[in-house]
């Protein structure tokens, strides 16, 4: 089992480094700043933890670990933000509305965590971080579900990069939420499965990202020549359904 965990850890870090080097060479940082900000945070936290493990005491390592975990949970929200920004880029009104909603929800969750931390930072660090992680992950699961449903329902055109971001991160968040829920319900009995499930979810996500974000792929731009008088279209379709409904019942009259 230990060998498997080392193999997953090594593969994960190798893929992360590949992705960052590739993104740097393809100038993807400025195109997806929040997404790569998160990846840089992950890489930075890995380095910090390795450094602390090597030179610091157990207590300092624990504090460093949980502080980096707290910051990573916050940085992770940047991926959801990036997904919303990229997918909704051509739809100004909807994007503005989505940003407001995302910002307010994030601020509420973060404010709750900060209030808890201010009372006794060291003592509350671990429970607050765990709660913040759980809250943000569940919130992101809901937000990603909403955007994925919108993409499917409205057949919103998305490019390869954005699709990889959405599918990869959504998969990771979905796995984490299921894993954390089962852990809280089943207790330590679930730990054996959990230490397999979570690294595998992370590794799968990195594979999806490497495959989809290896090079830049432009998001398809919708053609504005298509009818955009939304109010008229909506009224027209609503009336058409009314006519169809009447036709289905009234046509049977002799």
């Amino acid at each position, binding site marked *: 089992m230990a060998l498997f965990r080392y193999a997953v850890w090594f593969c994960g870090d190798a893929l992360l480094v590949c992705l960052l080097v590739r993104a740097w060479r393809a100038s993807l940082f400025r195109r997806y700043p929040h997404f790569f900000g998160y990846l840089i945070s992950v890489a930075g936290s890995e380095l910090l933890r390795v450094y602390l493990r090597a030179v610091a005491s157990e207590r300092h390592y624990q504090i460093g670990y949980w502080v980096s975990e707290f910051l990573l949970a916050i940085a992770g929200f940047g991926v959801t933000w990036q997904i919303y920004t990229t997918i909704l880029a051509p739809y100004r009104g909807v994007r503005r509305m989505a940003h407001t909603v995302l910002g307010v929800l994030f601020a509420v969750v973060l404010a709750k965590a900060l209030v808890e931390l201010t009372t006794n930072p060291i003592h509350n660090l671990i429970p607050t971080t765990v709660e913040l992680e759980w809250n943000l992950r569940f919130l992101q699961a809901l937000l990603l579900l909403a955007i994925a449903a919108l993409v499917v329902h409205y057949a919103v055109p998305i490019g390869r990069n954005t699709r990889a971001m959405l599918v990869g991160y959504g998969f990771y968040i979905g796995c984490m939420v299921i894993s954390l*829920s089962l852990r809280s319900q089943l207790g330590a009995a679930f730990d054996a499965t959990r230490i397999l499930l979570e690294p595998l979810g992370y590794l799968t996500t990195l594979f999806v990202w490497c495959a989809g974000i290896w090079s830049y792929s432009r998001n398809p731009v919708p053609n504005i020549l298509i009818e955009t008088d*939304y109010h008229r279209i909506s009224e027209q379709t609503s009336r058409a359904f009314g006519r169809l409904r009447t036709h289905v019942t009234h046509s049977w009259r002799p």
Partner: protein
Amino acid sequence: MMNLVFVVAISLALLFFLWLVSRRGSLDAAGHNGHIIDPSAYLVRLPPRDLLHRFLSPEDIEYAAALNSPALLRRVVQERRKLAAAWLRQTKREAARLFRLHIRSARHAEELRPSAEVKLMFAAGSFLVVYAMMMAAVGLYGPFRTRRFLETIETLADVLSNLGGRIAESIGPSLVPRFDPGAGR
């Protein structure tokens, strides 16, 4: 436990939608973007009412019944049932076409309003309910009995409407309290 079921259901729904997203080609929808939608596409193409009347004409049934062949009569009724179901399905196809057209147009709209989308969903949903009821009635009772059933309902609705009108007339304007603007002074 309920909380766990809810959370896992959300996560599974997320994974399902991600699977749908990953199945779609990245530029599949973009393929539609190059075309301007023909304004005539917004017209409702209703299946002809005459066609329904033609295959539900009582003369055919009377003629088949006059031949004194139960097998033939059963065959005629079965055929008419299939035709009625096909006619109904045509309305559903038209509804699906209109809905797809709306989605194709609305996804480019800047002023997309959730309330309007919900209203539209409700309109589509109520059509589907009526359609399902009609399909069930045609499937269970056959088109002829469904037609008679609808006629009975309409007659009943007319009777109730007339009755309501007469009751309203009998109450008369004298019994309705009048609004007196100076009453409160």
